[in-house]
C-alpha cells in the first residue's frame, strides 16, 4: 500500500462559549473556566431548562463588512469568523494558494433553526407571501461551507456533513480524504451550531437530554461524575486548517500538530441512545488507531465525547476499555466547560486536543466530584495536568448512531 500523504494542522479558529480566538479559548480550557450561564437570547419562561453555554460578545461586524454578512444566519456567521481566525492563525493569506486547491468541509447538525422558527410563525400568521425570499439560502446546513468559500474564493471540494453531534468529526474525516486523495492541498474544516432557540431548547427539554441544574449553570455539565444529569446545550463553531504536510512545510508554516487518521462507524442500534456496550464506538476507535498506525499504548490522551448523559458516558467508558484494556490513557471531556456544541463539538474538542499536544498539557474534566464505578477512567479531574504527549484521539458521537474518531500527533 502506498504511504498516505501526511497532513498538518496549521490553524485553529474557535468561536465558543469559553472564548473567541485560540488564546482566550485555550486559556479558559487550561484554567477550567465554564462558559455556562442562563439563556439570554429569548425568554425561557415555561422551559424546564433555562441554562446553556452561549457565545459572549460576538459581533460579526468585527470580521466582515455588514453588507457581506446580510445573508449569513448566526451559525454561518460563527463559521465564517472561525474560518477567518483559523486562516490568520495559520498565517495563510486566502488569496495566496491556488483557489481550486483549497476545500471547505464544515458540518452542522441542523443549520439555521431560528430562521425556520421565525418564518414558520410568519407563514402561520401572515400567509405564504410573508416567507423570506432568502430563507432557503440562509437556513440550509451547507450555507456555512458555501459562504466561507464565497468570501475567501476557495474553489476546491466543498461539503457540509450532517451527522448531528458527529458532524464536525465526519467533516474532519472528509478533509483528511480530500488531502490524501489529492483533491485539495488545504481544507478548512470543522463544525458550527446554533441550537439555543425556543424550538431547539424545547425539543431537547422534551427529549429529557439536558441537565436541569438551573440554579447552578457553571456546575451543570458533569461528565463521568456519578451525579451527572444530562448535557448543557451550547452554541459556537470551531474551524481548523488542515494542510498537506509538504505544502505547509514549503511555505514555512508553523505546524501545530499532525493529523494521523480517522475512524468512522455506526452503532446501528437506536436513533438517540448509544449502544450500551459501546460496540460501535470501540469499532470507531479501533479503525482510527489502525488508520493512524498507532497502538493503544501510543495514545497518551483521549478527548471523550463525554456529554454527561447517564447512558452515554458509561457506554463510552466501556468502549474505551474494549480498545485500551486495563490501563486506558487519561480521558477528559471539555464539555464540562464548553457545554455541548453538537455539530461543532468534535472540532472544538480537536482544538483543545491539538493545543494539549502543543502545550503538553491535558485539559481537565471540571465539576468532577463523585466517581461513578460505571465510568472508571482517569478523567483528569478538575485541574489541567502537564503530560508528555505524543498522540491523542478525539471521540465525537451523534444522534442517529454516528461515531467519529480523529487521531492527532505531536508536530
Amino acid at each position, binding site marked *: 500500500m502506498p504511504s498516505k500523504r501526511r497532513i498538518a494542522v496549521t490553524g485553529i479558529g474557535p468561536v465558543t462559549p469559553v472564548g473567541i480566538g485560540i488564546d482566550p479559548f485555550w486559556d479558559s480550557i487550561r484554567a477550567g473556566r465554564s462558559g455556562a450561564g442562563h439563556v439570554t437570547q429569548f425568554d425561557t419562561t415555561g422551559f424546564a431548562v433555562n441554562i446553556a453555554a452561549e457565545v459572549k460578545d460576538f459581533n460579526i461586524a468585527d470580521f466582515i463588512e455588514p453588507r457581506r454578512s*446580510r445573508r449569513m444566519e448566526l451559525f454561518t456567521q460563527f463559521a465564517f469568523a472561525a474560518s477567518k481566525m483559523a486562516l490568520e492563525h495559520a498565517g495563510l493569506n486566502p488569496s495566496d494558494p491556488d483557489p481550486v486547491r483549497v476545500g471547505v468541509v464544515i458540518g452542522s447538525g441542523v443549520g439555521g433553526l431560528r430562521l425556520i422558527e421565525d418564518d414558520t410563525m410568519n407563514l402561520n400568521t401572515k400567509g405564504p407571501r*410573508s416567507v423570506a425570499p432568502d430563507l432557503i439560502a440562509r437556513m440550509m446546513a451547507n450555507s456555512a461551507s458555501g459562504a466561507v468559500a464565497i468570501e475567501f474564493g476557495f474553489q476546491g471540494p466543498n461539503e457540509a456533513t450532517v451527522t448531528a453531534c458527529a458532524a464536525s468529526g465526519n467533516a474532519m474525516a472528509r478533509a483528511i480524504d480530500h488531502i490524501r486523495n489529492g483533491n485539495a492541498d488545504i481544507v478548512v474544516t470543522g463544525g458550527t451550531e446554533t441550537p439555543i432557540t425556543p424550538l431547539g431548547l424545547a425539543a431537547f427539554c422534551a427529549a429529557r437530554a439536558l441537565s436541569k441544574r438551573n440554579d447552578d449553570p457553571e456546575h451543570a455539565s458533569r461528565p463521568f461524575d456519578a451525579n451527572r444529569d444530562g448535557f448543557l446545550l451550547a452554541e459556537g463553531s470551531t474551524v481548523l486548517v488542515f494542510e498537506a504536510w509538504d505544502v505547509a512545510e514549503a511555505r514555512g508554516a508553523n505546524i501545530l500538530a499532525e493529523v494521523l487518521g480517522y475512524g468512522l462507524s455506526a452503532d446501528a442500534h437506536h436513533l438517540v441512545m448509544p449502544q450500551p456496550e459501546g460496540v460501535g464506538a470501540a469499532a470507531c476507535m479501533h479503525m482510527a488507531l489502525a488508520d493512524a498506525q498507532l497502538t493503544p499504548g501510543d495514545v497518551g490522551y483521549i478527548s471523550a465525547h463525554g456529554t454527561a448523559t447517564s447512558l452515554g458516558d458509561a457506554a463510552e467508558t466501556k468502549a474505551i476499555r474494549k480498545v485500551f484494556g486495563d490501563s486506558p490513557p487519561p480521558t477528559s471531556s471539555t464539555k464540562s466547560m464548553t457545554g455541548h456544541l453538537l455539530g461543532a463539538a468534535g472540532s472544538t474538542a480537536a482544538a483543545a486536543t491539538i493545543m494539549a499536544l502543543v502545550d503538553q498539557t491535558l485539559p481537565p474534566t471540571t465539576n468532577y466530584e463523585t466517581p461513578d464505578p460505571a465510568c472508571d477512567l482517569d478523567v483528569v479531574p478538575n485541574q489541567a495536568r502537564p503530560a508528555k504527549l505524543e498522540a491523542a484521539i478525539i471521540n465525537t458521537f451523534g444522534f442517529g448512531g454516528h461515531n467519529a474518531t480523529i487521531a492527532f500527533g505531536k508536530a
Partner: protein
Amino acid sequence: MATRDEVVTSLKETLVDRLKVDAATITEDANLFEDLGLDSIDLMTVVMAVEEKFAIEVSDEELEDVTTLGQAADLLSAKVGTNA
C-alpha cells in the same frame, strides 16, 4: 393613503436595515443591481417589506422592468389604496 415619499422611505429603511446597503449610496436614480449591489432575492426582500407595510401585492411580471429605486417607488406607490 400613503404618499410616494412614504414608500421611498420604507424602501430605504429595508435597504439599510435589512440589506446593509450604505445609506449614502442610495438615490432614486441608482441602479439597484449595478450601483447598490442587489440581487433578485434582495429585490424581493425589499418589495415584500413594502407590500406588507402598505398591504399591497406586486406580481413578478410587474417587477421585471424595475431597475432603479425610483421605478420601484412608482410601481409600489401606484398600488397603494388600489388593491389592498
